[in-house]
Each structure stands twice: as C-alpha cells, then as structure tokens.
C-alpha cells in the first residue's frame, strides 16, 4: 500500500488544478496581472511528491523548454496571420459593400453624358452584381482562413505539456506531446520550466490569449453572415441565417473552438468577454443601409474582443520568462 501511495500521490491532482485541454464556453476570467502564477510552495522542485524524480526532471526540463519556445513562437506567428487575414477580409468586405451600395443607388444615379447609351444602367448593375458575387467568395475564403488560424491557436494552447514517453524503466528517456500514462500530468510535477512559471502558468496565459481570438472569430462570423446576405434582389437570393453552415465542415471547425453547441445544433451566438450570450432576435428582412454597413465594417475593424495591449504584454511576459524575444 505504501508504494502505491508514493507512485500515486494525492497531490498530483492538485498540481494541475485546471482541466488542461478544454475551453469551457464560459471560462473563468484569467487574472490579468503581470505575474499570473504566484509560486506555490507545495510545487517546489525538490518536493518528494513530484511525479518526476529529480534526475528525470533534469531531462524533462530542456525538452519542455524547447517545446514551450516552439509553441509560443508559433502562437506569435498565428497572431500575425490573424491580423493579416482579418485585414484582407475587411478589404473584401469593403469592396462587397461598395459594389452593393453602387448597385443600390444605380437607378437614381445621374449619368450625365452617358445617359444616352442604351441599357447603360442595366449593364452597370449586372457588372456590380457580378462583383458582389466575386467579393462574397473572397470574404468567405478569408473567413475560412481565420477559422483555421484560430484552430491552430487552440491546438497550440493545448500542447504546452511535455509527457514522458515509453516505460519509465527504459534506460533511454523520451518525451512527447501526448500522454501515454494517465499518472503523468505532463507538467514535470509542477516544477518551474524556466525560472518561475510552471506549465500551468503558460497554459493559463495561452488560454487567456486564445480566448480573445475565439470570441472575436465568433463576432466576425456574425458580420460575415450579415455581409454575405446583402443583396439588391427582392426577395434576397443569398440570405443566410446564423444556423447555416457557411462552408462544408465549418461546424466541426467551430466545435474545436467550442463555438458550436451540440445541444442546440447551432453555432454559439456571439458575446463579449464580460457579457452573457444574447439570443438572436427574429431576422429583419430589411436590407441594411449605408450607415448600418458602416457600423458593421467598423465593428470588423475594431476587434473589440482583442485587447492588443494585453496581447503584446502576454508575449513580452512569456518571452521574458523564456529568455527569448517572441514577435
């Protein structure tokens, strides 16, 4: 009995308090302080209850360090990719809106000398209609790219741990990103990986970071649905609903980001970080006017869910802790 207690100490559970790889739909607000994880004395590296014995910890640490550096530099690169595809998407959205508004105002447009050309307005309208189809496709593919960026971020934020691979009795020690032994929490027994932070500290800030992008993706999906629905035709040809799948496989992508509700079989409705999820009201069939579209485009630009100062701060803090510059 005594040996079992040693190999499976009850403290293992408390070392890793948060469920590592799940984003609950309403996560607790992460503390936004400069030092997210105060050192817990029970997590001292020399603690006999640590899962990895000290010699093993010596081997674990460099691998865990390499892994963290890789994951965080990938996170930084996906952050850049998000920024560029969000801005590409915005220019497609702007082009779509402009083509739509031009088509809408075409009947009342004063064409001056061009007035006498036969069917000029009709032809211009058709051309503007085609442009809208084109921009709609581009907007959708940018959105798709943004979803894939967020999926990568989610996966990275779940890959901070470093597990022992193979039998611990083997003379060669290997580590991997996947757990083979449920007794191995993959956090080196809660020892600091570099200087102060444990694996769960890194996971906590990664989750805080990724959560911003998830919420923003969700809000942008609402804008995409609205923008793809604009049309001069009555009744609108391409009217979309929140519950429609925008591209094949979107719902399974969204469920990776916890943005798809299995209960309602619909995507989760957007909400802001500090707010409850609203319920979508009945659809207005009225087409949005210039100002409404302006508000939509501004909302796209504003990225209200992404506190870029905080994001910068996170990368600086993590970089300091890992002794590298991440950008």
């Amino acid at each position, binding site marked *: 009995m005594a040996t079992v207690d040693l190999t499976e100490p009850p403290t293992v559970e408390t070392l890793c308090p948060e469920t590592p790889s799940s984003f609950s739909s309403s996560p607790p607000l992460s503390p936004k302080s400069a030092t997210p994880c105060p050192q817990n004395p029970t997590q001292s590296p020399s603690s006999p209850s640590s899962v990895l014995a000290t010699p093993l910890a010596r081997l674990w640490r460099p691998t865990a360090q390499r892994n963290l550096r890789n994951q965080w530099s990938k996170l930084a690169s996906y952050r850049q990719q998000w920024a560029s595809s969000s801005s590409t998407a915005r220019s497609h959205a702007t082009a779509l809106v402009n083509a739509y508004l031009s088509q809408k105002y075409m009947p009342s447009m004063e064409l001056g000398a061009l007035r006498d050309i036969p069917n000029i307005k009709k032809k211009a309208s058709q051309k503007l209609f085609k442009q809208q189809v084109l921009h709609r496709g581009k907007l959708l593919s940018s959105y798709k790219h943004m979803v894939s960026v967020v999926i990568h971020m989610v996966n990275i934020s779940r890959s901070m741990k470093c597990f022992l691979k193979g039998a611990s009795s083997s003379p060669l020690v290997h580590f991997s990103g996947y757990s083979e032994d449920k007794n191995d929490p993959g956090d080196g027994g809660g020892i600091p990986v570099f200087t102060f932070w444990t694996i769960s500290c890194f996971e906590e800030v990664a989750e805080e970071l990724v959560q911003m992008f998830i919420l923003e993706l969700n809000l942008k999906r609402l804008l995409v649905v609205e923008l793809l629905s604009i049309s001069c035709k009555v009744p609108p040809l391409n009217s979309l609903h929140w519950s429609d799948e925008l591209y094949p496989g979107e719902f399974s992508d969204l469920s990776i980001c916890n943005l798809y509700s299995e209960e309602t079989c619909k995507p989760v*409705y957007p909400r802001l970080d500090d707010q409850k999820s609203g319920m*979508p009201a009945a659809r*207005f069939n009225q087409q949005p006017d210039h*100002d409404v579209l302006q508000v*939509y485009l501004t909302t796209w630009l504003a990225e209200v869910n992404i506190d870029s100062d905080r994001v910068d701060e996170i990368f600086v803090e993590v970089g300091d802790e890992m002794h590298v510059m991440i950008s």
Partner: protein
Amino acid sequence: MEAMVKKYQQRFRKVRDEMDRWSSLQSRLISQFRNASSIIQRLQVLLDSKKYVRLKDVVGIQEAVLAKQMESLRKILFSMNKTMEEFHGIVLSLGKIHRDGRQMVKGGGSNQLTVKQLQQRVGVKPRLADCLDGLMLLQDMHCSEYLLKSSLVSALSALTFKPRCVIASDLGALQQLLVDQPNIPNEEVQFIFDIIFAEEIC
C-alpha cells in the same frame, strides 16, 4: 568674403536637410490626420444605436466598439502631437541656423561688416545679404506654417462630437489646408536656393 559665402552655403545645406525632414513629417501628419478624420466621421454613426441592427443582439457591442474607436482616436491624436513636437524641433533648429548666420556678420565689433560689403557680389556667388534674407525667410515660412498646423490639429480634436454635416465639410477644409502648406510656397523656396547655389546650376 568667399569663405563667408561658403560658410553660408553650408548653413543652407543644413536648412535643406531640415526641410527634407519636414517633408517626411508632413506625409506622416497627413496620414495621421486622415486616420483621425475617418474615425471622427464614423463616431456619429456609431453613436446611433438604431444602426447596429443585428449586432444589437450582442450585449454591450455598441459601447465596446465606441470605446475601441475612441481609444484609437486618442492614440492617433497623441501621435499627431508627437509629430507636432518634431515640427517644432525643426522650427527651433532653423531659428538657430538663422541666428548663427546673423552672428557671423554682426559678430564682434572689429569684424562688423558694412552695408557695402553685404551687398557686394562676386561672380555668380550670392551676396551676403541674399544669404541673410534667405535664412530669415525660410525660418519665417516654417514658423508660420508650424503655427497653422498646430491650430489645425487642435481644430481637429475639437470636432470630435460635432454634428455630422459640420464635420464632413470642416474636415475637408482642414485637410486641404494641411496638405497645401500655404506658408511655404514652393516656387519661393526654390528661388532662394537657386540664388544661393547659382554656381552649382551653371
């Protein structure tokens, strides 16, 4: 005399460097101004909750978008003020170049130059009087333009919550003034430099 003229030409080269710096600041200020004015123009629309239509279902969205836009505007206005400080730096530096130039002819009592010497012309080289006037004019132009720009920037921030129709026309007028730089007429500047560096043109 010739050595003096050389010294003045040296100063004009410095002035030219400062003016190059001015041009790059000018393009920076214009783009900052454009960004700020597009936010100011949007604010009126963003204040109208009726315009959010579908977004209204997202609790708090209007406040959040407005807050973000105000924050961006604040940042832009802040960096515009930074740019203005750099403009001011150029004005001060031009002032110093001008003062030093005047010091050269009015220095100690012994080497004080006569009016005749100031007006004396050697070949295509500029007269000392041309040099002095040139430095003064260039400094004056940039100083007045700096004052104009300062008032344009404060007028811009004062427009923030004005009614929409006022904003659209006022912003256009302010931007035009900013781009035109009425106090620094290009031909006149070119004329001054042509006289000072006449020998290089020939």
